[in-house]
């Protein structure tokens, strides 16, 4: 009788202790996932930064679209400047962008007309809200983080980290077909159909109106999925992410890649791969360029929903 008690008691004590320690290790986990999260937070807290980004979309290894962008962003004075180039199947398109407190200015590569859009009111409202809701949004962020952690679940073990001798870190994540959660996999074709269906409808528009709207200009060029619309067997083949984090816990470089496989209406299989490569530099030392519009061809662009404000000013 006594032996039995000793056995069960011992088993409970030992397994309880092991469970506690392994649970604590899992919670404390100095894993790549936690490292990446903290680096992301540190990078988001930056006041100004220069960004160089490249994106390439490939179909069975052939380059379909190629985008290259350079951006200088400064948050405290709400300024941004940059240049974006998109090379599509048909043509090349480039846009210079300047954005400040007063509004946005942009110019497409082919013409010398500067489009100007004035910003009113909205931004100031946003500023006031920022200060009052700061505390609340911090709480929200924390809650959102917990939710994301729970959603990620055991996948967080997939993020691996490699410390370098100079104190920087290489963080990487690689997910293959079987490892991608079924829910995400099920949503992939829907997202894909949505993307290609949406842009089919835009084909009729002429390019003159597109010039005044940079979003559309790029949307048309970058995501022209009409020729490669996959209709069957759509699935995410792999997802990978690689980030270089410097000594100050800022993300210096981030490469991401996602590839889809599927068949088009003719039954031909395609592998679509989107690669992005982002370099960040000049942390907190970036000064965005400004533009002097004196003596240049300028065209004002009005926001559709902003019309009623015009008479007041």
């Amino acid at each position, binding site marked *: 009788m006594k032996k039995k008690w000793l056995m069960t008691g011992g088993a409970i004590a030992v397994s309880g202790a092991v469970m506690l320690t392994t649970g604590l290790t899992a919670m404390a986990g100095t894993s790549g996932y936690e490292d990446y999260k903290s680096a992301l937070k540190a990078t988001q807290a930056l006041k100004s930064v220069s960004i160089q980004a490249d994106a390439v979309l490939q179909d069975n290894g052939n380059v379909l679209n190629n985008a290259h962008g350079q951006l200088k962003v400064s948050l405290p004075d709400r300024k941004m400047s940059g240049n974006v180039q998109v090379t599509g199947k048909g043509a090349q398109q480039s846009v210079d962008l300047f954005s400040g407190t007063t509004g946005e200015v942009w110019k497409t590569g082919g013409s010398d007309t500067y489009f100007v859009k004035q910003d009113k009111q909205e931004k100031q409202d946003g500023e006031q809200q920022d200060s009052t809701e700061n505390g609340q949004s911090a709480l929200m962020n924390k809650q959102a983080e*917990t939710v994301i*952690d729970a959603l990620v*679940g055991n996948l967080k073990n997939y993020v691996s980290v490699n410390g370098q001798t100079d104190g920087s870190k290489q963080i*990487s994540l690689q997910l293959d077909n079987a490892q991608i*959660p079924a829910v995400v996999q099920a949503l992939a074709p829907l997202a894909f159909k949505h993307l290609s269906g949406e842009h089919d409808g835009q084909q009729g528009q002429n390019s003159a109106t597109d010039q005044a709207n940079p979003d559309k200009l790029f949307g048309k060029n970058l995501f022209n999925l009409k020729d490669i619309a996959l209709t069957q067997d759509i699935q995410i083949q792999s997802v990978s992410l690689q980030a270089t984090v410097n000594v100050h816990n800022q993300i210096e470089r981030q490469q991401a890649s996602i590839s889809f*496989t599927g068949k088009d209406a003719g039954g031909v299989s395609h592998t679509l791969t989107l690669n992005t490569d982002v370099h960040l530099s000049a942390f907190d030392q970036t000064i965005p360029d400004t533009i002097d519009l004196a003596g240049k061809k300028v065209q004002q662009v009005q926001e559709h929903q902003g019309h009623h404000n015009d008479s007041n000013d």
Partner: protein
Amino acid sequence: MISLQAGIRNELLLMLYRRKTMIFFVVAAVLPILLAMSFHALQPVIGLVAASPSFPIQMLELYTLFMIPLFLFLAIADLFPQEVSARTMKLTLLRPITRFRAFAAKLLALGMAIAAMLVLLAIVSLLCHAAIGTSDGGSIDLIGYGKAYIAGFLSMWALSSLFVFFAQFFRSASGFLIFSIILYAVAKVFPFFVKGFSSFSLTSYTDWYLVWLSHSVSAGSLLTSTLFVISGMILFFSLGYLMFERKEV
């Protein structure tokens, strides 16, 4: 040892004679086929892959999250509270078998049922893939999938020991069934509100098999998570046994 074997046989036969066990197994076998067929039929509409090479793993996700836990709750309700309320537990204990062996026999029988269900699932989902699946998107990594299924089995068995422990508090099968479903749902939702809860909860290890599918997961975290699952199983087995031992039937 012979009494343990007899005990296991006894429990397995009891399980087999219950109609709901058979229904559960039939549903478990038919569900992947139904899903694969409906995906196949809906192909032109939603464009989803019917049965890709990762189909066995996607099915495993569904089973470790819903099917097997539900089956476990039903089976545990029959194994413990039901036998107490129907006074058939007495008959088991009147046999020349110690309480420990009677208890162990019930848990081993549960483990065998889980294993049987997983084997059935593996065979059916592989057949589905062979019948209407596409070979696009990689081949089947049998060793990796095997590891994932074994991990799925371990986490499910550990989960069953947790619920066997809770079953000791109940004298009615329906009460336990409702309690366990609610407890499982709450334990699944809790990590969305409380940080760190999932590190200490066996219920968040239902997708633990994922860890075994990757090459990038460190050996350290494989070891600690395995230790966690096994020690959790031993802990709740022992606690459950303590309760079972002192139970008046």
